[in-house]
């Protein structure tokens, strides 16, 4: 077996608490499918037959019992549960399941929606015998108005790649930098041309070598893949006492039984690379890869969709785009739509919906078992499951969560209505977040 897929679905969705306080993030509906379906579909299309899913007990229960969740994946899901309150980072989670990991791993986050050709990332990993290979995408900023509580300014990520655009030379987050970017002279000497980019989205899709997992087991101080391990590996490419030495020690220890054969194999590989007339750079006197054993690569998607649904903005954006990725009937066959309603072509109606007369639904997503009464106008909105919308409502650019009830004649613009909330009749809300009172103190 070459690669084992690991799906990280235990994250809390800390940046969109309004949506996730009732529904765990992997189960949030995007285009009427749970969010976790998208990375699973990506892995299935790539040809994986088995996935290790790291998630909470709640999600596991919901996945196995809830019939409404359309999770028709043919792969075998190996679910590993962790405690929700354990506050485990992604690296901690890997350490937790390290017994199950036997080969190199492909780590995917549950909030990734993309149509990337996975072989691009994995080919870099294979061809260059890399330690880390990741996926990044050129961000597209959305111009639409979305319900936000306050301005959410993301800390920028500085990513340095070489002139071919494949090798990762530098990675740092603005939060970790005090005054300016510091680039080591050894890096500049080896790679005189570096492109530093800030607008890239890290898709949280990593191919890691098995020895990295061993390294994580040793160093319990690293708790997050994205925040700590990846910048560490990128830095260590160019350090003299590199992690590769430590990796070699590990590999020696674990292979003491097959000592002779492993050494001979290494010697053959060494001979092959010596005899090969290839070099990854030209102009200086060093051998291929500058003799470094640790290499990090990134595949930067120029076109295609890639979203990480970890903020409200991206959630809304993903809802708009995700259905176009997969050819699916926009209207579920079991939905009951009256003749005199207008349902736009780019809207999605879930199962068992009731859409009454004279309603107009444009560019929206309606979840399962939702009841929409007469004379309702819904535009650019996301309505989740089991919502009741009374007559005469006008909903624009909003997100209505599960089991909410919108009273008669309400006018909701760019709002977020939390789960189970009731909006009274004739209410007029704009740019508001309506959640339960017990959630108001969450900061």
């Amino acid at each position, binding site marked *: 077996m070459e690669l084992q897929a690991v799906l990280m679905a235990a994250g809390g969705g800390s940046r969109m608490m309004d949506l996730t306080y009732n529904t765990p993030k992997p189960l949030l509906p995007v285009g009427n499918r749970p969010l976790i379906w998208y990375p699973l579909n990506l892995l299935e299309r790539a040809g994986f037959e088995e996935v290790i899913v790291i998630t909470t007990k709640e999600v596991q229960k919901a996945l196995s019992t809830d019939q409404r969740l359309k999770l028709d994946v043919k792969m075998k899901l190996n679910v590993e549960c962790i405690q929700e309150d354990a506050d485990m980072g992604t690296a901690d989670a890997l350490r937790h399941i390290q017994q199950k990991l036997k080969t190199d791993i492909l780590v995917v986050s549950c909030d990734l929606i993309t149509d990337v050709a996975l072989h691009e990332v994995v080919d870099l990993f294979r061809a260059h015998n890399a330690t880390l290979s990741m996926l990044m995408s050129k961000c597209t900023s959305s111009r639409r108005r979305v319900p936000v509580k306050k301005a959410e300014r993301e800390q920028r990520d500085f990513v340095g790649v070489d002139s071919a655009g494949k090798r990762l030379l530098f990675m740092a987050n603005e939060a970790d930098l005090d005054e300016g970017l510091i680039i080591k002279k050894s890096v500049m000497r080896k790679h005189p041309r570096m492109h530093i980019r800030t607008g890239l989205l890290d898709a949280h899709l990593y191919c890691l070598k098995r020895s990295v997992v061993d390294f994580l087991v040793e160093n319990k101080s690293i708790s997050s893949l994205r925040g700590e391990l990846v910048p560490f590996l990128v830095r260590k490419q160019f350090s003299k006492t590199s992690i590769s030495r430590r990796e070699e020690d590990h590999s020696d220890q674990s292979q003491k039984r097959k000592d002779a054969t492993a050494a001979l194999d290494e010697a053959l590989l060494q001979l*092959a690379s*010596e005899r090969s007339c290839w070099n990854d750079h030209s102009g200086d006197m060093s051998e291929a890869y500058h003799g470094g054993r640790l290499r990090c690569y990134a595949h930067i998607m120029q076109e295609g969709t890639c979203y990480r649904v970890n903020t409200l903005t991206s959630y809304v954006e993903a809802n708009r785009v995700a259905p176009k990725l997969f050819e699916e009937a926009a209207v579920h066959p079991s939905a009951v739509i009256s003749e005199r309603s207008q349902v736009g072509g780019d809207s999605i109606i879930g199962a068992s919906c009731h859409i009454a007369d004279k309603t107009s639904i444009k560019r929206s997503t309606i979840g399962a078992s939702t009841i929409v009464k007469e004379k309702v106008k819904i535009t650019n909105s996301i309505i989740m499951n089991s919502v009741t919308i009374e007559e005469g409502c006008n909903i624009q650019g909003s997100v209505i969560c599960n089991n909410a009830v919108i009273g008669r004649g309400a006018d909701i613009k760019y709002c977020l209505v939390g789960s189970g909330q009731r909006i009274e009749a004739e209410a007029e809300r704009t740019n508001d977040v309506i959640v339960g009172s017990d959630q108001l103190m969450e900061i």
Partner: protein
Amino acid sequence: MADSEGNERSKQTAIINHAADEGDEKSLAEIQKAKNEGKELTKEEKLRLRKEKKQQKKGKKDDKGPTEKAPVKEKTANPPASSQPVTQNAAQKAPSAVSVPVSESTAPTDKSAKSKAELKAERRARQEAERASKQAKKEPGSQAPSSKSKAPPSELQPAVKRLPEHIQVDDPAVVRKLAKKLERQQKSGQGTSLNVSRVKIPLRSDYGYKVSLFSHLHQYSRKAPLTQQISIPATVIHPSIVRLGLQYSQGIVAGSNARSVALLHAFKQVIQDYSTPPNEELARDLVNKLKPYISFLNQCRPLSASMGNAIKYIKKEISNIPSQYKEEEAKKKLLSCVDSYVNEKITLAAKGISKYAIDKISDGDVILVYGCSSLVNHILCEAFEKQRKFRVIVVDSRPRLEGREALRRLVNRGIRCTYVLISAVSYVLPEVSKVFLGAHALLANGYVMSRVGTSQIALVAKAYNVPVLVCCETYKFCERVQTDSFVSNELDDPDDLIVTRKGKTHLADWQSETSLGLLNLVYDVTPPDFVDLVITELGMIPCTSVPVVLRVKNVDQ
């Protein structure tokens, strides 16, 4: 006129029916004559062909031999059983019979002054008949060069051999056959074992316009790797083979020796991870397992002669494993065989060759090398260690620019080097005392197959009377015979030839230019008249002694 023609046609159908009943060879000639005229007959012919094809398909399921002969028999209406050579002869006679009645029929037709359209129709009918007869011939496996289908087969029939399939890329029927063969190979590997997983090796599609002289070769794009079409966790093909294929197609492992060593390394991994299925024997099953891997590697990049020889050796070793060996023992033996092969044929051979070659290098020499040959670099480094005083001129050529790598390695050792491009070779040659060339393969007629440009260097060196020495290990000796660089070569990605300077790429959309083709050849062939000496680990031999070495090697094995 129409009536008479109609009568003629009815007469001809009567003749055909008659022939079918009787089975006479003379009537066969009449059939062929009848086939030349009139389109209606070709319709009948087509119907008959369809019936035959159906029967052939049925025949393949039951029993290949005799039932296939049935449609052929029907067609030629010959007596059954053990008549395959007879049917073949008859089939072969058919086109010759065609030529006879053709000449006969053309005379009267000229006289009757038929219009151009009718002549075209006749020709078309003739070609259809020939194609039909050829299709029937292909099943029994007789000789029919499909790439030359346009030429009249009767002239070429007796002398022409069947071209290997990897050469006939411009013929769609052959390409389809190759695809089927790749599919079949994977099923064949399973044999009688219980969990049969259908392994399909994808077919890599050609890219871009191919120059017509080389249209029989494959031309792939580096941007469309074969891994696009296989599943990501490579389960059907061993991961180390996938990695190797990727490294071949991206050029990370390049050079004859490096490719062979990397291939053997990957095979070692395959052998280590191999486990015999319950009802199979290791000797047979492992060889079958290797077949799809080799097809895969061939799709990534055409195999080199050295790789071919290494594969033959491994297959021989595997099939020679005695059946009483347990799996662990057998595996250990195989792994040690691979190691000893690398050691003997590559490492020790290099030592032996450098010993002989150093004798040929004297102080004050100016040595010209071309491109990056691992063996020549090794020799020069050894010579420098042995305190010989010489300097090197490295000649390089686009688009690979491998000479830069050779230059780097030599300068790293401390050797004084000069670097020129191949266009400057004739200016530089007056000061050169010897030319050392590496080889990709040595062919059985003494020709040297090497990186494109080598034959130019050898030619110019000959013109300046500079001795040309080719260094080559014996495992690269190949039984093929080739006298030109067209018939068998490798086409690299044409986009490599495009240059971007200051952000501007003039050839960015070369595909839209209808009259422009980009050709990126990889190998060329140097005749033995230009090569003065071949240095192998068996000694220094003239180019013409290569077949002797091959013969001796075969006798040994």
